[in-house]
């Protein structure tokens, strides 16, 4: 399955920093969810974040487009530092696409309308142009024939591919994936991973929270392991999988790879 996906060329990374997280802390009430997260992501870099459930990995990437607030530290996305300024947040969100575990497609709109909504209303594109772009991306995720259907008429894998296309229609500079295959039936995981690999081949900057270790091995430049709200270890995938340094990483890998 995931092991069979072809590895996109890992070209040398650009110097340009796309995401910079510095000393980010977050509390839910008294519960300390994120502890001193430091992360630098370069343009074109592909990062896989893994860790046990409740380790704060989803929360961490959701801070990048401000779906979650954080109480300490700073995050700079594409040269702009996140603040409480609503307009600034909206501007940053336009450049950061996000794919969710449960797809979150808009059920009252057709697939095509899901894809054209933000380009028309946020990017102010003419409808015709937005539809052309949408069809192009729907072809890329290999479901142009479903354009007139409603999300409820599609399978889970198809819905997640529409969600990816919807994000891409905004022409984002960064894509965040929050466990994109966790809610899918096993036979649908590959079609979504294939789509993500294709995206990686085009040089998209990606952060992906996933347990698909095959995907991490073939696609990621760097694998990050989180536990208890901290980044425990990060390394290139070959090193990470063959020679994990911390005991917690070893335990996690043994649990996830031997079942």
């Amino acid at each position, binding site marked *: 399955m995931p092991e069979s996906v072809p590895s996109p060329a890992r070209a040398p990374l650009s110097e340009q920093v796309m995401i910079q997280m510095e000393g980010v802390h977050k509390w839910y009430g008294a519960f300390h969810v994120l502890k001193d997260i430091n992360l630098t992501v370069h343009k074109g870099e592909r990062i896989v974040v893994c860790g046990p459930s409740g380790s704060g990995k989803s929360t961490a990437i959701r801070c990048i487009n401000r779906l979650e607030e954080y109480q300490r530290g700073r995050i700079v996305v594409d040269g702009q530092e996140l603040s409480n300024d609503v307009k600034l947040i*909206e501007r940053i969100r336009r450049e950061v696409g996000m794919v969710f575990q*449960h797809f*979150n497609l808009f059920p009252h709109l057709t697939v095509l309308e899901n894809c054209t909504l933000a380009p028309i209303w946020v990017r102010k594109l003419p409808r015709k142009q937005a539809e052309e772009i949408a069809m192009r991306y729907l072809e890329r995720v290999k479901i142009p024939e479903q354009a007139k259907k409603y999300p409820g008429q599609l399978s889970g894998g198809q819905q997640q591919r529409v969600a990816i296309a919807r994000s891409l229609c905004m022409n984002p500079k960064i894509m965040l994936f929050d466990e994109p295959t966790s809610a899918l039936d096993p036979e649908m995981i590959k079609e979504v991973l294939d789509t993500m690999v294709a995206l990686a081949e085009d040089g998209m900057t990606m952060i992906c929270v996933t347990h698909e270790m095959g995907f991490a091995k073939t696609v990621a430049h760097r694998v990050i392991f989180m536990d208890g709200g901290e980044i425990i270890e990060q390394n290139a995938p070959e090193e990470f999988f063959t020679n994990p340094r911390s005991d917690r990483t070893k335990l996690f890998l043994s649990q996830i790879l031997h079942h």
Partner: protein
Amino acid sequence: MAEPRIPHPVPPPPASTVGVVGWLRRNLFSSPLNVVLTFLAVYLLLVTLPPLLRWAFLDASWSGDNREACHPGGACWVFIRVHFDQFLYGFYPDEQRWRVNAAVLLLVLGAAPLFVRAVSGKFKVRLGLGLLVVYPLVAFVLFKGGTIGLPVVDTSQWGGLLLTLVIAGVGMTAALPLGVLLALGRRSRLPAIQSLCVTFIEFWRGVPLITVLFMSSVMLPLFLPAGMNFDKLLRALIGVTLFQAAYMAEVVRGGLQAIPKGQFEAAAALGLGYWKTMGLIVLPQALKLVIPGIVNTFIALFKDTSLVLIIGLFDLMNIVHNATTNPAWLGFSTEGYVFAATVYWLFCFGMSRYSQNLEKRLHTGHKR
């Protein structure tokens, strides 16, 4: 050795499960209790229906123009015939009633494309908004007059079904948007807006509509400077609208709460702001979910308009009541109230059917 299998035709379902017999068994005689209930219901219908039909149709008097034309024993629909125009228009002057007819015709023609499937959605939205904004002004000018060469007809002369429809129409079209805003405000993160909306909703929901109408007609003038007097109908309209908006707000809030957090997050992640998220993503789904509740409120509003009789407005209910006290027609209140009830029922049933149709059409087969 096994015998060669002879293919046989698929047997038809047993006769007792299909057709009329099947239907009867399933729906009327499926258990001993249901058998008893079926017979009981048939008995009740046999007892009540024939006398009712005899009174309303067979023995009823239809023609004539005074009470001498009424046969005893049956309903006297002559009473309704004689007062029919009054029931429709109230005290609106005879020679000006064409203005009301024109306004109704305009509405029917204007709204007709909304119910035609072939018309594009975009055009429907524009037409609908246009009707909502422009039509009330046009109708007001036609009803009230005073401009474009039409003589003034004071609102105190409006009455009957016309007045009922004016109050219900204004109440519905104003209460829904106001209710949506109140519902959004109640869920707002801004404490000032939130507490304002909560206070408004709880105040208006906490007082009976009768009290609101009394206050608007009796108490409000006490607070206004002497000589300042604004229209009684306008005050009733404002009272009804604010009252119903509070109910509407809670109905809409129920819908808003049913929208999963993921929808808000997906909209936010695409860079949509608050109003676009609400207008394009959340409200279309939330309102669709609460169509039954909205129509419920509309129907209640339609019937509540009859309460304006206590402030001396002659809506359909009051004008019928008024006619039954006419010395020339004493003793025909049953006919009058049956007629009024039938008209209310027709409108309410119409709304109910339309909403069911709307729900079916808007269903996109997705529950997430």
